[in-house]
């Protein structure tokens, strides 16, 4: 079986690794720029298990298990830490909703902890808590180094024989007799029996070329990073009042983002001052200790947003034979990626649909079985 994977982000690389591990030969990964150019290396490099829907939480829980053992699997130390996620809640509705969800999380064995403002102050003295009603702390969540996750997967897949071709932009998927036969590049054709589209925000265009419409669209998100400071912010802190979040990398840089309304679509990967100022204002208010921290750099990347903010993986039986996708991750593709690749590999090779994967099939949109995920950060 010849397998062409389009895109070398975490989805494509973990799929390639898992396919190769299950014995698939002839795997090529086609990347339009360079290894992991798209969203993986632009991500905030965090993972969490707390999601609004049970399907996503269960999925993320399994994904986390792979993530924390990735160093042993790939041979690259992905620097896993579990500093937790802290949501700052500002209204009774938010508190009620989180308490409701915590019951579900409890059932899954991932109960979080509700913290009063004084408890927050005690644990994290750098947070301004006067207007915070309560905090929800998920200690199971954490961070790992996104670059090494991607590079580690790539190296592991390459060791097993997968081949990466950079600067090879796939222009369209070739279909004959309702069966994929390969992909077309400016350099020529790549023949394949299976085409797996893991091109993140760029997947929409490739699907559209086949006349397949899924309710997804790219949304540009911006991030900012400060200079390095002493490591003191362990959790990722999400301010649900302003929708800003911050976290600190082990090297010491404090990074974060805030939601700013933007048009969807593949906007140029540039930054706006509007975003930077809004984020700075949110940080100024919430983290007085960071007022003197200096913002060093900002960048942007795409969330591939799906209609229900949950990822899409697998195939629709009505599609041309051999066509698979993994995208539409709505900002949590990095944390789900390790498991997506694992399940997808089994799906492609053995036709097996894992119970964890079933809810995320692309058929859910026409069947009306949406997974309305509300806990999207950033």
């Amino acid at each position: 079986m010849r397998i062409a994977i389009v895109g070398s982000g975490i989805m494509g690389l973990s799929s390639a690794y898992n396919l190769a591990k299950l014995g698939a030969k002839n795997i090529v990964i086609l990347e339009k720029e360079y290894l992991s150019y798209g969203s993986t290396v632009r991500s905030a490099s965090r993972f969490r298990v707390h999601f609004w829907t049970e399907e996503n939480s269960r999925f993320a829980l399994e994904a986390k298990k792979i993530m924390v053992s990735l160093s042993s699997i790939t041979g690259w130390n992905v620097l896993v830490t579990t500093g937790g996620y802290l949501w700052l809640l500002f209204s009774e509705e938010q508190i009620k909703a989180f308490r409701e969800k915590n019951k579900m999380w409890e059932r899954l064995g991932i109960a979080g902890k509700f913290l009063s403002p004084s408890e927050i102050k005690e644990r994290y003295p750098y947070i301004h808590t006067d207007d915070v009603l309560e905090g929800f702390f998920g200690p199971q969540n954490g961070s790992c180094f996104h670059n090494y996750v991607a590079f580690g997967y790539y190296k592991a897949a390459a060791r097993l024989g997968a081949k990466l071709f950079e600067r090879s932009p796939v222009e369209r998927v070739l279909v004959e007799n309702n069966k994929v036969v390969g992909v077309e590049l400016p350099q020529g054709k790549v023949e394949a029996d299976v085409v797996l589209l893991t091109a993140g925000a760029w997947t929409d265009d490739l699907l559209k070329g086949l006349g397949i419409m899924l309710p997804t669209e790219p949304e540009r998100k911006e991030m900012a990073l400060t200079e390095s400071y002493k490591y003191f912010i362990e959790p990722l802190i999400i301010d649900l009042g302003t929708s800003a979040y911050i976290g600190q990398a082990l090297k010491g840089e404090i990074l974060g983002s805030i939601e700013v309304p933007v048009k969807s679509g593949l906007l140029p990967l540039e930054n706006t001052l509007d975003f930077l100022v809004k984020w700075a204002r949110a940080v100024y208010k919430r983290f007085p200790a960071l007022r003197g921290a200096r913002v060093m750099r900002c960048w942007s990347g795409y969330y591939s947003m799906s209609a229900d903010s949950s990822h899409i993986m697998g195939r629709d039986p009505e599609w041309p034979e051999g066509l698979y996708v993994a995208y539409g991750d709505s900002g949590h593709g990095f944390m789900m990626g390790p498991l997506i690749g694992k399940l997808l590999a089994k799906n492609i090779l053995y036709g097996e649909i894992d119970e964890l994967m079933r809810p995320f099939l692309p058929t859910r949109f026409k069947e009306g079985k949406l997974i309305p995920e509300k806990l999207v950060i950033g």
Partner: protein
Amino acid sequence: MSTLRVKEPTADNRGETVSIDVNGTTVKGLTSESISVTLYANGIKFFDRSKKLYRPRGFFSLHPQARTVMINVNGMLATNPSEIYLTEGLKVHIQQKRPLSMHFFESMIDTSLLHKPIVKNRLIWPLALRFIANSINNPEPAEYETPHSIPTIVEKADLVVVGGGVAGLSAAIEARKYGLETLLIDDVELGGEMLCDELEPPGMSEPGCVFARNLRKKALELGVRVLSKTTLVGFFEDAVLAFSPHPLGSGTPYIISAKAYVVATGAVDLPCIFANNDLPGIIDASSALRMLSIHGVVPGKNVAVLGATERGLRLVEHLKKYAVNTIVLDKSKNGAGKGDIVRGVKEIIAIGKDKVEALKIKRDGEELKLNVDCIICAASTNPDIKISAQAGAKITYIKELGFVPIHDLFMRTLKSNLFVAGGASGSPYGILHVIEGRIAGLSAAISLNKTDAEAERDALVKEYRSLLQKFGISDPKEKMFRYFETKVVPDEKITEPPTLFCSGPRRNAFVCFCEDIRLWDLYRSVSVYGFTCLEKVKRSTGIGTARCQGRLCLVNSALYIAYITGLSPNVVGIARQRPLAISIPINVLAAMGVNKA
């Protein structure tokens, strides 16, 4: 304490003599000097310890964007000593001791550890990681309150010239002649490096400093508006931001709105790469010249200059005027230039405990040892592409010019209404900077339909071409003018990078001073992991991601990777340049009202 002051400073505003406190000792300096210069003049070269390996560090360059070393001023750890000017009673604290634990755990914070799962144990690893994170020599964020509202000034102009060297001044003057509202943004001192040149630059008949002063005067007389000590920070999608840092914290943000931009940000002296090249007392040629001419401070008593380049030899001439013993070290076996030049140098090893004390040189079958107290890197420069690349110019590598924004004879880049001139376009000589600036200013006026003086421009271009001929850089420049037309990226092979004075991938030859990244780290990223594109090397080593934003390391890295892989530097590429050019405190950004102009 020995002083390196040899004459009265020529800074236009000499300032007053003030005393500051350095680790309990009183040190005298002038209010026209930054902390870096005062400390250096008093023989204090060691400012802080490096981030991961706790090596002693001083400044490499005085340029405000070369933020490779921070210092503790008035208790604020993260202060750029080259950006803060003296005031009476400043307290500087230098952390001289290395934490004892570092002697045992140095290998643990070695960046190589991060690549290897040497600690697979899931119980021990989190502890080790925590230890590593806490061991990094990072400061705490400065704590200060600023007035909650900082006025954001909106500056509108027809043309904004970035950089106030002779190229920028000439562009501004030319544009002003045709009636353009012109705003000049400069981050150091109006006049640029030529202001420090006490000799006659090639092709000119008066000392550079006289010429630069006259040009400055003329620009001001013609009504060019100037924002000095201000850095253009970034081209955002919705605004262009400039920032003028104030002493100790805060600063003034400016929103810039213009119809055209001339980028004349000059060139960057690349650090030379050799063993222990991070020791305090190793500085770049532009800082050495600036200290000498503007502040009257010699870089040392016995100075080694790396690179028998035009730039290096001119610096030696300057130093000789002040009875400094100099020796020039060069890689090539033969070449022009007279005086004390040691040629055929293969490898250099700097020696010293917390500053340069001596130098070991290896060349064909012999080893020399020299006692020096300062090493000056003058082997190679590269255009400062931070701003032009961010603004949308396309960057290419041409061997003789470096990584340079593609431009044509009219100094247009591939982005409309963006022009380059001077060192930022790869030209080495002041006289070329002047004419390039004039062409860029005139081109801007023509493209904004303020004049149709194309005949004048053609005359300038003709003169420019003959000057390029005269100074022997016609070929590479003409090559680039062709790329402007064809838009095809050239394939350039390089031989050994001019800055490399090191025979192997040494673990004590530093490429990045901010993050302690060594030649060895780069080598491993290329040879073990097989990464040949700079973006990937950057992501696997962290090169170019720290405080100086790749100003000093990216070009050296790209050339080194090209050298060891045999690829064209255009294939290796230069990493994407992102805003901001210098970092801005959160309190300043938070206080800004974004008035989109």
